[in-house]
């Protein structure tokens, strides 16, 4: 009873939070919650999101609606691991998680002696939009473009990601536009849009200086952005104020340096996507308050890349990995572990930290009361190569079980 109510409160606040983005957005007539904004985009979530409200509002529900997962090892939001933990789910949301959580009578129970963690979250993705939908090549600046319009819930790549335990991912415009538009966070199952309006996406990398259109030079990119942020309006103002996130593609170190200088000039901060050797500038990045989303590293790092990564962990810069080949996604976190990240840091880089960087940390990526009940049953420690996905749940529903195992009672 109490739990559900507070859950509702939490939920509403989180909706409000994600709603703010869309208020400023010139698109989408009805300025309501993030969930509803997603409605015109995808049919299914529409009533789903309403159902969600009703359920919450009419308070007490029979314990039959409760799903309880008994986990041998339960990975908590704070990074700790609880032995023989219990995860309680109701109405698609986490209502409780921890060691001494009582399982209500009549609740559906899933026994899993392996590990259970939050569903994996990708703070950046490539290849999860239909082909040619990522780059609006004819325009260098498209601040109000919304990548969510390119989101195709039926895309088979989403299914592949789901099978590897990825439940939420960020869709971003391609890197060949200086300003690509708004990023969105979507679920890999059910075509649900978590937010259509997470960041304003910039690219200060080489592809943005293309000879196909202007600008063709770094100088051109910078002067263009300087002009837009100097007396900022619309999306630029939002990004400056922090209502809207800022996600910037940079690759080489000089591009990172260039971005940080731009940020300094205009008091901006956000996620830097793509800088493999960012670690060599770890201190400056930490000082700037930016986070980093790294490309999937190779399984074996050369000495230099290894040291750069280690420096990043050392400096406590928030980091995540991008999602291209879903098989490499969890492997990236393991590589980070091998490169010296703590177990908590490593797992967070594909769950909670990733969610924060994607600006949906209040609804996904953590097994925390009021968060979406997206979680994965692992055959073993998710930070082992020998471990595999056994089952994936999204909003409390079993959406995938592995072929040769699969043990959902």
């Amino acid at each position, binding site marked *: 009873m109490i739990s559900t109510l507070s859950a509702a409160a939490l939920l509403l606040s989180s909706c409000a939070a994600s709603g703010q983005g869309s208020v400023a957005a010139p698109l989408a007539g009805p300025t309501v919650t993030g969930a509803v904004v997603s409605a015109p985009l995808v049919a299914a979530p529409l009533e789903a999101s309403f159902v969600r409200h009703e359920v919450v509002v009419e308070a007490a529900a029979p314990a039959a609606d409760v799903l309880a997962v008994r986990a041998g090892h339960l990975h908590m939001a704070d990074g700790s691991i609880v032995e023989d933990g219990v995860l309680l789910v109701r109405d698609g949301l986490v209502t409780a998680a921890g060691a001494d959580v009582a399982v209500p009578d009549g609740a559906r129970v899933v026994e899993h002696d392996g590990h259970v963690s939050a569903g994996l979250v990708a703070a950046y993705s490539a290849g999860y939009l239909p082909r040619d939908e990522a780059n609006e090549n004819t325009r260098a600046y498209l601040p109000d473009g919304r990548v969510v319009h390119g989101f195709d819930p039926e895309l088979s790549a989403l299914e592949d990601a789901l099978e590897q335990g990825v439940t939420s991912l960020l869709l971003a415009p391609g890197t060949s536009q200086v300003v690509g538009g708004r990023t969105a966070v979507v679920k890999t199952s059910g075509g649900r849009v978590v937010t259509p309006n997470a960041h304003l996406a910039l690219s200060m990398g080489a592809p943005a200086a293309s000879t196909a259109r202007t600008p063709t030079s770094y100088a051109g990119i910078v002067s263009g952005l300087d002009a837009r942020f100097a007396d900022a309006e619309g999306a630029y103002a939002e990004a400056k104020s922090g209502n809207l996130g800022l996600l910037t593609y940079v690759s080489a170190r000089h591009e990172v340096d260039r971005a940080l200088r731009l940020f300094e000039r205009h008091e901006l901060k956000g996620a830097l996507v793509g800088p493999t050797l960012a670690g060599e500038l770890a201190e400056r990045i930490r000082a700037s308050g930016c986070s980093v989303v790294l490309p999937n590293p*190779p*399984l*074996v790092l*050369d*000495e230099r890349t290894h040291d750069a990564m280690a420096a990043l962990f050392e400096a406590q810069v928030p980091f995540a990995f991008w999602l291209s*080949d879903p*098989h*490499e996604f969890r*492997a990236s976190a*393991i590589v980070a*572990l*091998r490169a010296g990240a703590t177990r908590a840091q490593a797992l967070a880089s594909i769950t909670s930290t990733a969610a924060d960087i994607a600006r949906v940390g209040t609804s996904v990526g953590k097994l925390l009361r009021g968060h979406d009940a997206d979680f994965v049953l692992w*055959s073993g420690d998710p*930070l*082992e*190569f*020998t*471990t*595999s996905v056994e089952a994936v749940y999204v909003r409390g529903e079993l959406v995938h079980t592995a072929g*040769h195992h699969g043990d959902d009672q």
Partner: protein
Amino acid sequence: MRSIAISLAPFVLGAGLAAVSPAAAHRPASPLQDEEPTEQETAGTESEAEAPAEVEPPPLLAIRAGRVIVSPTKELENATVLVRGDVIQAVGTDVFVPEGTNTVEAAVVCAGFIDSWSALALDTGSLFDRRTEPSTRSVDGIEAFDGEHLRLAALDAGVTTVRAQVGVQSNVHGLSVALRLFPDLTDERAILDPDAALAMQVFGDDPLDRVGNVDRLVDQLDRGAAYRKAQRTYAKELAEWEKKIAELEEELEDDFKKAKKKRDEEIEEAKEEGKEYREERYREDRKPRKPDFDRNNEVLGAVAEGEMPFVVELHRIPEMRKLLARLPDHRRARPILAGVSDARFVAEDLAALGATVIVNPTTQGQGGAFGSNHLQLAADLDEAGVEVLFGSGGRDASATAALPLLAARAVAHGLPREAALHALTLGPARALDLADRIGSVETGKQADLLLLTGDPLSATTRVEHVLLAGEIVHSAK
């Protein structure tokens, strides 16, 4: 194999003969083995050269481990591995270790990993040479002065031996070298076998081309077999001829006086009759002609006779079916199939044939009907009873270092851990005729060992030390 090892005695770092002689020992003798006695002496003296060393026995090294993975299927708790010189002298839980023996501790000890399909330590030009032929030797393409960082990365990951292969863009790649990753590759101990296998591939965009290529490939084996046959026949005929001529000469010697007398008489007669003397023509059987030497048929012959295995890279069903159909022509040949992206469809046939396959357990494989994820492939084939080896694909030198981790990922897809370890150690060692020297932690084998901080397949395990021939050649930073 001897004939090859000798007629193609390697130049590179002059290591060939020393390395090949032990390998030759357990291989069927070839009809040509006596061709160059001089060379055999050289091979002999090489081994004698080691003899004086035994006068003063080489130093002992004892490795005490919480766990010794003797072989993929056999493990010992709290055991000791005793190494004398370059050889494992004893392994067990109650090994006697003499006072003052050098001792190292390790959580886990296991045999060095083998990448049975690698591009490591080769010169790029040779790796992608399109003009290679059966007799082209990867040992000639070894690059000892460059790419050291990649070799160290491989040691760091526990890979101690690779089957390196040049010419990966030609139909017939040439001869593989079994190479131990000594940090200094000019060290002659590095070359375990300069003629470990013959490697080929079946490629082409059009399935018909590929099937045709399988035919061409097997035809080559036919040619090799025919070449060997011709040589045997020649040897036989020559012996007979020489015997016959020897007898002939004897009787000619005996009859000489008679013949001389006859000749003189005939000359007289001719004089009297005023005719000129015509001496009678002499006839004898022609000496059998020696078949022409062909360096490529030398190799193909050895393969057809099963003196060395041959590796065929192929990926699609039609060519696999075709190969399976034609292999029975060469019962003695020992095929190893590499790549085999779609092998799930023919898994049973492969199992029936007792074939060995090399799988490159990546997520970026050769594509094909089953997509590009080969992590699953290993598990499926193993389940069907096919012997699976792991290889890094033979194109990218940096891939070798990732192989052990990929093996672990294959386990995540259902491959039993024993099978995974087998595919990295004993499996390739046996398939490449190296099992007498490497592949497991057993008495008498070379001490190519890994000292690990934990389970070999765990992500957080570090390779603390790598031993090659009993020497610590690499240690984790």
